[in-house]
């Protein structure tokens, strides 16, 4: 484990292999060349491929994405790296109205990846928005949310070999986690969830850092003899509802969790659809876990109070176990 690549290194590995494989792939964003991006996600890549294929941009998010859209339409395979997903707010038209809609109208493909780090950590309200539901709601976009180094690399490869705009969200607090990664041809498909932990008594459906919280909660409950299954969605759209439903059908008890503000988050989609499709399997209502409806404070104690804790998760699971 200690020698395994980190989540960021998994990204480097994936992008490096793919850039060798396909000369149309290039990256653009702020501070990529020397710094390697704000999360070291492309550390060393500019040194290997040069400044044409790893382009440092001005702070112009709209133009960055527009550059990606136009270049993708022309036949290149750009990766626009926004560093923080929050900065996508400056390019929302380019992502939602343009990238996502072009194929439908103009019959050209837009093989574009918009990568950014997301999720809740330090830094305050402007750097800790959760936009998963925005992008997953938008027709024409796919959304990847890798939870392990393996999936970072494997999902990236899949995205780079498809012909569609993909929003690729990596979690801040996973930046340093380590784990095995696949080789050059180990692709991870979109829309196929992963069973992160098997268990027969109840299921937690989640993604990103919340998987860590869920795993800790599962450990707590394991000590009490409860076997909790954890599903890592890996992509939010397409979403592997079959995996969710299959797990639910085993026991009829489900928690859906992430750290976005709860109201109208992606957890609502999962809970609503699962409740509708597998109604008869439910022992009791699906319980949702998410963040409070508050901008994110910069104070660490307040951050912890805003997003779900292990205790919150344990309580939610206990609730479904109580049915």
């Amino acid at each position: 484990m200690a020698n395994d690549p980190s989540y960021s290194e998994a990204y480097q590995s994936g992008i490096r292999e793919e850039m060798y494989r396909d000369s149309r792939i290039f990256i653009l964003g702020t501070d990529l060349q020397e710094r390697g991006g704000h999360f070291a996600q492309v550390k060393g890549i500019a040194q290997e491929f040069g400044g044409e294929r790893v382009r440092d941009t001005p702070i112009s998010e709209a133009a960055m994405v527009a550059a990606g859209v136009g270049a993708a339409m022309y036949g290149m395979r750009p990766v626009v790296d926004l560093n923080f997903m929050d900065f996508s707010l400056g390019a929302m038209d380019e992502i939602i109205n343009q990238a996502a809609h072009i194929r439908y109208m103009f019959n050209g493909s837009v093989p574009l990846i918009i990568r950014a780090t997301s999720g809740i950590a330090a830094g305050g309200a402007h750097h800790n928005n959760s936009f998963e539901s925005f992008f997953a709601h938008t027709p024409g976009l796919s959304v990847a949310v890798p939870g392990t180094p393996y999936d970072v690399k494997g999902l990236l490869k899949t995205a780079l070999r498809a012909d569609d705009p993909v929003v690729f969200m990596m979690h801040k607090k996973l930046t340093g986690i380590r784990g095995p990664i696949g080789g050059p041809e180990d692709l991870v498909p979109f829309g196929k969830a992963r069973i992160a932990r098997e268990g027969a008594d109840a299921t937690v459906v989640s993604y990103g850092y919340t998987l860590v919280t869920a795993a800790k909660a599962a450990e707590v409950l394991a000590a009490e003899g409860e076997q909790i299954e954890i599903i890592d969605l890996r992509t939010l759209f397409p979403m592997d509802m079959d995996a969710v439903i299959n797990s639910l059908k085993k026991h009829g008890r489900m928690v859906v969790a992430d750290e976005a503000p709860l109201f109208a988050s992606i957890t609502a989609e999962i809970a609503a659809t699962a409740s509708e499709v597998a109604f008869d399997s439910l022992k009791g209502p699906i319980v949702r876990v998410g963040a409070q409806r508050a901008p994110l404070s910069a104070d660490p104690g307040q951050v912890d109070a805003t997003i779900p804790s292990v205790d919150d998760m344990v309580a939610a699971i206990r609730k479904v176990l109580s049915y």
Partner: protein
Amino acid sequence: MGAREEMQSMLRMMMMIRNFEETADRLALRGKLSGGIHNSSGQEAVAVGVMSALAPDDVIATTHRSHHHTLAKNFSAREVMAELMTKVTGVSKGRGASMHLGDVARGHFGGNGIVAAGMGIGMGAALGIKMAGDKKVSVGFVGDGGMNTGRTWEAINMAAIWKLPLIVVVDNNQYAVETFINRVTAGGDLAKRASGFGLPASTIDGQNVIEVRDAVAAAREYALAGNGPTFINMLTYRYYGHNTGEKGQYRTLEEIEDWRTHRDPIEQFAARLFKEGLLDQATYDEMKVSVEAEIQDAVEFSENSPHPDPSEVMLNIDSGKLRG
């Protein structure tokens, strides 16, 4: 193509666009189109001048007012008219209507419902051209209204620092809906504004198709030589309201009449060709007739074409390669 043929074909294209627009507007008023249109009558020299300087596989990306650009880029009147009626035979297979004409394969990266968004895409296409090492240019059209949209300057700056083969064409008809350019645009001449972003910038007479063509040809050479983008502000005028049926009070009838009478791009160009002996009355009359026939044919073709199948709304949203 000899000079005579070239000049005549430019003239005919302008006449065709005018006839197309006025016909389409009438059809829209009679409810025959899928919604209204943004009529470009008066701005033909911009479209035809630009395209005359481009190679067929150069790329364009444009705005909500783009019939003239699209026709001048050799999309047929049939397929443009059909798109205005949202027929499957249309440029965008009936999914786009007036604002969303485009076909990536033919180097038309789309009209746009969002002010200035097309210009950004044009910049991206220029980046694509450069990365691919191709010898082409990309033209990004934007209106005077788009001069106050921040993304415009982001894109221009990016093109300038990266020396992208981009030509920014301001199809400057001086109004954004009801809003006269000087009411909302500080600093006077747009070329001066642009030059602060480090690229050659000029303001030219957008009613003079030859001036337009020559300016774009020079910009194209400049770009192909690796020097980067050029900004050309083309002064022009729209004769009709912002969209079908609009009759605003924001400008005087005298002003419109003045442009129509003294600065009409088609009349000016025809007069010049007559004077230079490159056009005679018979040819001109013939052109009118053939243009009229072409547009009538386009209308008929479009009316006889089917709408896209409602059951196909879920097709071609993505490549399918990422489906679960």
